[in-house]
């Protein structure tokens, strides 16, 4: 069909793009993680100091564990919100389906920053939530821990990533042939059994895709802790940011990045394998 030259010509731009903007930066990051900074200057001397520092300094381990905890919470809460929502839309929304779908999608068009600041005004000590609680005389003083806490970060990230979790789950639920559900009921399974034995297993690919989205994106997030997190909710990406910025320790920052990247890649591999096990077509 197509000549060799044509195929090569078509393949070059995307390959260049991936090479220059993806592989090359990763290679540089990887290399940096094995270099070091001496007297404020980057020294191209191969060593594993950065990794040793990473695992021996309890601060990094602590922040990393906190990050993982936050990401796990965000994933769980997004699933708890996103799955029922997708289920309702797919099976019970009837004619309202299209409208509700759009309502879920619209927040995705609003800037991340705007949504972050919105949470600030809601959760702040003179914010909407505290005002409301005081108005109802539930609290006398403004509640401080709403804002600048891991709670606020989890809340904001859950809000942001729930649509990302919702979408693949909704897609996989929509793909379940409806006669399968009728067949299950026909064979004596009530709604609950039909959900557990047919709908849930067949939506696992979407569920995994959504969970991976939420977890990976939360793991690398640095804006939410910056906006609503405060010092008690510093996440690993904030450390990377400061190491590349004010602290000027690119090699250590790169080492942390390599770790996060490895975890992410491992996770993607694992979920893909499980997804394959659960996809049937």
């Amino acid at each position, binding site marked *: 069909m197509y000549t060799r030259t044509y195929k090569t010509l078509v393949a070059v731009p995307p390959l260049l793009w991936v090479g220059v903007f993806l592989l090359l930066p990763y290679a540089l990051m990887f290399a940096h993680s094995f270099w070091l900074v001496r007297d404020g200057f980057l020294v191209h001397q191969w060593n594993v100091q950065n990794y040793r520092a990473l695992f021996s300094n309890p601060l990094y381990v602590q922040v990393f564990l906190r990050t993982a905890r936050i990401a796990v919470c965000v994933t769980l809460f997004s699933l708890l919100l996103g799955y029922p929502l997708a289920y309702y839309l797919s099976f019970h929304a009837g004619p309202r389906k299209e409208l509700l779908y759009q309502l879920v999608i619209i927040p995705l068009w609003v800037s991340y920053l705007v949504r972050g600041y919105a949470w600030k005004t809601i959760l702040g000590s003179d914010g909407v939530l505290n005002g409301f609680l005081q108005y109802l005389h539930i609290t006398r003083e403004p509640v401080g821990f709403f804002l600048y806490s891991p709670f606020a970060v989890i809340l904001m990230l859950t809000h942001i990533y729930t649509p990302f979790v919702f979408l693949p789950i909704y897609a996989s639920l929509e793909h379940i042939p409806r006669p*399968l559900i009728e067949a299950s009921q026909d064979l*004596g399974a009530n709604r609950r*059994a039909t959900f557990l034995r047919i709908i849930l*297993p067949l939506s696992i690919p979407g569920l995994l895709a959504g969970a991976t989205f939420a977890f990976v994106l939360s793991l690398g997030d640095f804006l939410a802790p910056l906006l609503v997190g405060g010092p008690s909710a510093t996440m690993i990406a904030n450390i990377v940011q400061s190491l590349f910025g004010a602290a000027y320790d690119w090699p250590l920052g790169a080492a942390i990045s390599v770790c996060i990247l490895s975890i992410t890649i491992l996770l993607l591999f694992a979920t893909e394998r499980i997804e394959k096990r659960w996809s*049937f077509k």
Partner: protein
Amino acid sequence: MSVAGATSPENTPLLEIRGIAKRFGSAEVLKNISLHIAAGEFTTLLGESGSGKTTLLRLVAGFERPSSGEIWMSGERLDTLPPYERRVNTVFQNYALFPHLSVRENVAYGLRVRATPKDQIAARVNDALDMVKMRDFAAARPATLSGGQQQRIALARALVNRPKLLLLDEPLSALDANLRKEMQSELKSLQREIGVAFLFVTHDQEEAMALSDRIALVRNGALEQVASPREIYSHPATAYAAQFIGQTNLLRGEVRGGTAACGEIRIQPVSGPDGPATFSLRPEAIRKVSDATIGTPYMTFKATIRQQIYGGATELLEVDCAGQLLRVRVSAGEALHGEHEFIFSPRDAIRIRD
């Protein structure tokens, strides 16, 4: 509950559909349908697509609720129960096998969700797989099976639950012609063997004739005629029934004093009142005078051969009797031309509602 003692159990029909109507919005899909099905009977809902036959099946299965009317099974109200509490099972048009479960797990599904003891499940699943000759495929995934094999699994999955009534929604329509014929005869012998009542939906009149004890002909959401295949073929109640099941000649004319005049064709004797009338005369009820052995009384007419369509053992003639076109089925012979004389028995001209 039905009135105890009023009818003996043998006389109580297995399934009673009483005055069922179903509307979707303003569309009236089923109009006042009443139908009884006896235990062990093979009943077919035959009709064109959109006639409402599948909707009727779905009402019995419980996937739809009737707008009015009731459905009873063995003296119990059925239409108020959810599908999972009805002792009926369905074979779906595209089988609806669970893709994430093996053949064995698919067949075991109904027993598992009803918490049947484990050892019983294994034995009954094996029996069901043997019944459809699919034991060797127990570990396979449905996606790896052919259409015919999936069909068998769908049957086994339904029958393993020992339903009193099996509903089949055009189960053979996805198969190619040869396999379809084969599955038809298997289905029929299976049904005889296990004695479960089948309610079978199809748009294929040949299939309905081959399989059914009784055919319920559905037209525009109402029952046109309910009778055995032989009865419905030899004594169609309406012009629609006569034309839908087999081929026929419709003769329209006037009855006066026991004689009908339909163009050049006379029919005598005719029962029923005088006035306009329609008759169904099957092509095979008409013979050429030259090879006829028809007893008295008989009718004759002269007609010109228009077309001769060869069909193996028989051939179909299209003949013109003074402007009236008729079809005549004769055993295959030499090419025919010109005018011939034809003969039929007036008993074969069935007076029908138009």
